[in-house]
Every structure is written in C-alpha cells, then in structure tokens.
C-alpha cells in the first residue's frame, strides 16, 4: 500500500492542495485590496496550471499518444487566453 501511495500522483495532489489554498487566500477579501486585477489574473493562471496537472497526471495524458496530449495542452492554452482575454476586455 505504501508503494502505491508514494507516487507522482500523490505529489501532484499535494501541489494541487497547496495551490488551492493559495488561490483561496488570494481570493479572500483581505488579500485583494486595490490590486484585484493582477490577483484575479494570477488566480486564473493557477487554475489553468492545476487543470493541466490533473490532465497530465490524474488522467494520465502524459503517457497518451502525442495527438491526444496535444489536444489537451492546446485546450489549456486556449482556455488561458479566453479567460484572461474575456476578463480584461469584456
């Protein structure tokens, strides 16, 4: 059981938990202040990084054929562009 738990997936889970707490703290009222635009952009970027980790390590896309992996990687880039673009320009 130990060898099953001590894997890359567990390390990725820990990173995801830490990033969630970081975003949560950033999003809290007291942390926003007058810099809510850069803070929001950081929160969006962290979210995209997190979904990339989920895709690559939990969904095991890093071991998938390049075409499937590229579709997912491209989606992450497009989503980052869409969300930041719409946030800033809409």
């Amino acid at each position, binding site marked *: 059981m130990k060898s099953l738990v001590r894997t890359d997936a567990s390390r990725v889970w820990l990173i995801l938990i830490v990033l969630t707490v970081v975003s949560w703290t950033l999003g809290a009222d007291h942390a926003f202040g007058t810099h809510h635009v850069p803070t*929001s952009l950081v929160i969006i970027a962290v*979210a995209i990084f997190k979904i990339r980790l989920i895709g690559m390590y939990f969904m095991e896309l890093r071991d998938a054929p390049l075409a499937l992996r590229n579709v997912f990687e491209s989606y992450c880039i497009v989503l980052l562009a869409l969300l930041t673009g719409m946030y800033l320009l*809409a």
Partner: protein
Amino acid sequence: MSVFGAVAIPRRGTAPSPPARAHVPGEPGLWIVLFGDIAVFTILFVVYLAHRGENAELFAHSQQALNRTFGAVNTLVLLSSSLLIVLAVRAYRSDQRRHLTPRLAIAGMAVGSCFVAIKIVEYHEMVAAGITPSTNEFYMYYFVLTGLHLFHVTVGLIVLLVLVGLARNTSPTLANVAFFEGGACFWHMVDLLWIIIFPLLFLVR
C-alpha cells in the same frame, strides 16, 4: 518519472499489466465525449465573463454573498477523491495490488459524495437568505454553472459505483481495465471543471 515504464502490451482477455507507453486512457471514443463536455462548459465560462463585464458592479457585489469556504473545501474534496481513484486505477492494473481496488474506489466515492452534501448545505443557506436563480443575473449564472456541474458530479458518483462493482472482479479483462480507466477519467473531468468554476464564480473579481 514515468509510473508505468516500458512494458509489453498484454494479450486480449488476459489479466492486464500496466499499459505500454502512448496508451490512450479508457476508450478513444470517450475522449470525444469528455472534450465535448469540456467545450460546452468553456462556452458557458466565456458567456459568464462577457455578462460579468457588462455588469461588473452587480457581479462583484453579488459575489460577496457566496461562501468561499464551501467552494474551497469542495475543491479539496474533489482533489482528494480524484487521487483515491487514480490509486484505484493503478491498483486495478496490478496483480499484486488489485485486492486494494474496491477499498480505494469506495473511499473515492465516499469522499466525492461529500461534495454533494456540502453543495446541498450551500444551496440551502442561499435559498434561506432569499437568494435564488431569479434574484439577479449573477446568481442565475451561479446556479446554472454549479447546478450543471452538480449533475455531472451525480453522474460521476454513479460511474464510480459501477467501478466499485467492477473492482470486485479479481481477473479483469483488457476491456474491464479500459472501462475502469474511462470511468476514472470522467471523474477527473468533473474535478477539472470545478477547478475552473470555483475561482471564476467565487474568487475572480
């Protein structure tokens, strides 16, 4: 850092070994469904941000009524459930560890079920405070996005229940393993969608 390494592709119908490199998790057709679902949510995210831009004050003010703690805890819940399902998939592929699969899958489902319980409490609090989808545009998007996601969580939990049943099979075929991987990927997609919905609705101002 590869978990699986280079191994031989198992013969059809025999107890499976870990997958070879360049392995499509689940059935290839499943990925069309997953990416289709993700695309629909992406359109909703863009529409939400477009309307947010038109009513920035209203959206920022309404966002204050949301309970960020519920949203964040639900993120931790889904991430932890996802990890348990990742471990269940890996155990299922291994002859030595397959006996751990039912316990891991049940634990993943139990932790995932907490999302639904927390969401019900969250909805109850909001409705008790007089907030419904018809209150204003922000809450309409809040209930549509979280409601649609909650539907996916429910479907995902049913899929996990099927995986628990499958996990009891001590001699799975390749098709069983592919189904198990596919079900797990659906559950990870549910997690992935929440990773975007939570900051978008609760945190980004």
